[in-house]
């Protein structure tokens, strides 16, 4: 068979080669899938990532605690009046990642700030009550967050994310 004839008119042989190659390719791709899929979290890890409940009653005003959910530190701050006012006084449009404070807390529970305590720059854990904005300061590369966990200074591109949570009672939240 010459190249010219195969280009113009597919023969049975071409079809056979293409079909064999196609089945082999599909088989190879399907075989590869389990080897990739196994890298994802296994069933026990997924199950262990179920929601957790946190009792807020022992946390005094001005204090904050750190709990772990899915291996991530969650900061829960009992904010003072002053901190809340600071968070609300800033002009939102001037922020690097504009977001009003009331979009980051649950209404009626403004004293509670719940954020994932992982710097949005490269994943270090910021220190509470440090930095120029009375919020959080990341020691790795100098990102500064305010009392609402919003980025104010430094290389981090975004605010500290708020995890999914809800108040099950006035003194208890469920994270996740």
């Amino acid at each position, binding site marked *: 068979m010459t190249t010219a004839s195969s280009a113009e008119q597919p023969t049975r*042989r071409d079809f*056979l*080669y293409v*079909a*064999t190659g196609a*089945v*082999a390719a*599909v*088989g190879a791709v*399907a075989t590869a*899938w*389990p*080897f990739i*899929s*196994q*890298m*994802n979290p*296994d*069933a*026990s*890890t997924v*199950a*262990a990532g*179920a929601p957790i409940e946190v009792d807020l009653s022992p946390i005094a005003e001005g204090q904050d605690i750190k709990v772990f959910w899915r291996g991530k530190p969650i900061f829960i701050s009992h904010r003072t009046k002053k901190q809340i006012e600071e968070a609300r006084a800033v002009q939102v449009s001037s922020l690097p990642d504009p977001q009003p404070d009331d979009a980051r807390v649950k209404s009626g529970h403004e004293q509670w700030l719940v954020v994932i305590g992982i710097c949005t720059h490269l994943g270090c854990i910021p220190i509470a009550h440090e930095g120029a904005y009375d919020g959080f300061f990341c020691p790795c590369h100098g990102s500064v967050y305010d009392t609402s966990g919003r980025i104010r200074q430094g290389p981090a591109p975004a605010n500290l994310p708020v995890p999914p949570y809800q108040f099950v009672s006035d003194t208890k939240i469920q994270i996740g």
Partner: protein
Amino acid sequence: MPVASSYFLQDRIMSGPSDYQPSHPVLKWIERRLPILGLMHSSFVAYPTPRNLNYWWTFGAILSFMLAIQIVTGIVLAMHYTPHADLAFRSVELIVRDVNYGWLLRNMHAVGASMFFLAVYIHMFRGLYYGSYKEPREVLWILGVIIYLLMMATGFMGYVLPWGQMSFWGATVITNLFSAVPFFGEDIVTLLWGGYSVGNPTLNRFFSLHYLLPFLIAGVVVLHVWALHVAGQNNPAGVEAKTEKDTVPFTPYATIKDLFGASCFAILYAYFIFYMPNYLGEADNYIPANPGVTPPHIVPEWYYLPFYAILRSIPNKLAGVVAMFGAIIVLVFLPWLDSARTRSSKYRPLAKQFFWIFVAVCVLLGYLGAQPAEGIYVIAGRILTFCYFAYFLIVLPLLARIEKPRPVPNSIADDVLAKTGSKATPMVSTVIALAVAGALFAGSTDSARASERVDTPPAVKWSFAGPFGTFDRGALQRGLKVYKEVCANCHGLSYIAFRNLADQGGPGYSTAQVNALAAEYKVKDGPNDQGEMFERPGRAADYFPSPFPNEQMARAANGGAAPPDLSLITKARSYKRGFPTFIFDFFSNYQEQGPDYLAALLVGFEDEPPAGATIPEGSYYNKYFPGHAIKMPRPLSDGQVTYDDGSPTTVEQYAKDVTAFLMWAAEPHMEARKRLGFQVFVVLLLLSSLLYFTKKKVWAGAH
């Protein structure tokens, strides 16, 4: 003649740089600096391969394929495995249960080891039959023996890693072989163990070496292939390629043939992975390692059985060990022991017969290796051990002197032209012999099990049996109820989390039902902020709590026998199937020994032991329990558990339901395994038939 002619190919392949020239400028640029494309081209494309090779020659490619599979699945399993004496067994179980496709990867790796050895034995016997070890291929053959030794070491250490009973005692027995060394034996064994017995340090170093050795194997395989490409391939006629007419280019001729062979081999491989994953394994290895109790019959994996038989047939410790290693080392000297000038046994009437006798000797040695070392088995073992060594040390040297070979063809091309229908006969006999050999090897481990069990459990018709079997949801739910209300008082189910009850292919509860069920249990958690442990209601992610906090307390509360955890009990128990039943089991896809035994055991209690049987104080008579004296009192009685669905509340029904539930508990992904197996079979059968026709098309021009 072999001497002179063998250099023809060498000149063609190896002299000077390859004449391959890539056309793309980038490839040209690379090729001038690193001629890797030329190397690839001359090794795997232009490389002349004898045109008369039969399908036994595809096993080289099949072995490369298996090595690659073992390395890839092994690397992936190592991502999830924990090499620690306290955690290894559980980590393997959690791979199978929780990791995405973990059951598939584990089956591929465990069955893959057996398939690798099956292929290497066929490859070695092929070399033996066609004289592929003879000049100028001695180094090629010796490299092969080195690969085989490395494979044995790797396979052994891999078998230790799941840290089950057979792992532990296999490790103990094999490392103790070195205690036979005079003067330094004990010191060597202590050095191997990293302790005074097999323990955590041993497991850790075995894991490290099990990861290392496959890469060494891959390295020696490169040398093996290199040596092959220097000498050129042997062929069924055993005459060297002389002219272009004797050979075809490796690609596409050998490539497509190898692909077809590998695809057919993959069908067998897939059958084991998806339908008989435990057929080649040992039930005892589903019992976690226990340094205080040796299983009644310890047997190695099937691929070591012939050598194990040789070891046991020699009544002296050191001599036995020397004989066992000697049985492998003798292969190194094969090129000089067999000095006959004719390579292929096709033209050696006597050597051909002795070859098949030798194959039978190996198979029978394998069978004996799985039998208890007593009576007639020992005598037979000694005779066969003698035959094994006699083949190499007496028969082959003698045949070289006295045998008058038939004339060999002038050239490979002549051999191809002279080919008639007569060739089919040896092929068929080979296939039959190897099928019998494989089946005998494979099943002989089963027949080693507890010979004292006289009453065979009746075969129950299970809904989960067969290639399309599924669990009966109703039976699983009833079985869970029996477990909770009866078994759970003494037996744990520690590998099952509540969430599993809602998994696909399980009892089919909803998430809400599972949460409610979990909340009925009190689970220990902590420490809390005060540093104290506390109890809380169970959650879906928690595992079934065990009735006793530790084994000692379980033992003390149950008359000295700790009730075993039931998570794996249907896989950890079995009974003797015997010859030839285990061969039929392979074809009928029977693998329900465990459930059959368990269901029989639960109804096998008798208040009055039969005449002649004495049952010690605190034990009970059971028809099916090995030795008949079981510490567990009759657990079930009619009407004990109420069923909501109108099923009969009899002991028989309870026994079947709880066994079905425990079968699911032992393999929660069984339905997924069989479902995926069917899909894989469809693809593999399609691929194999397409490859067959492609191969025919490609070869049509070569004949």
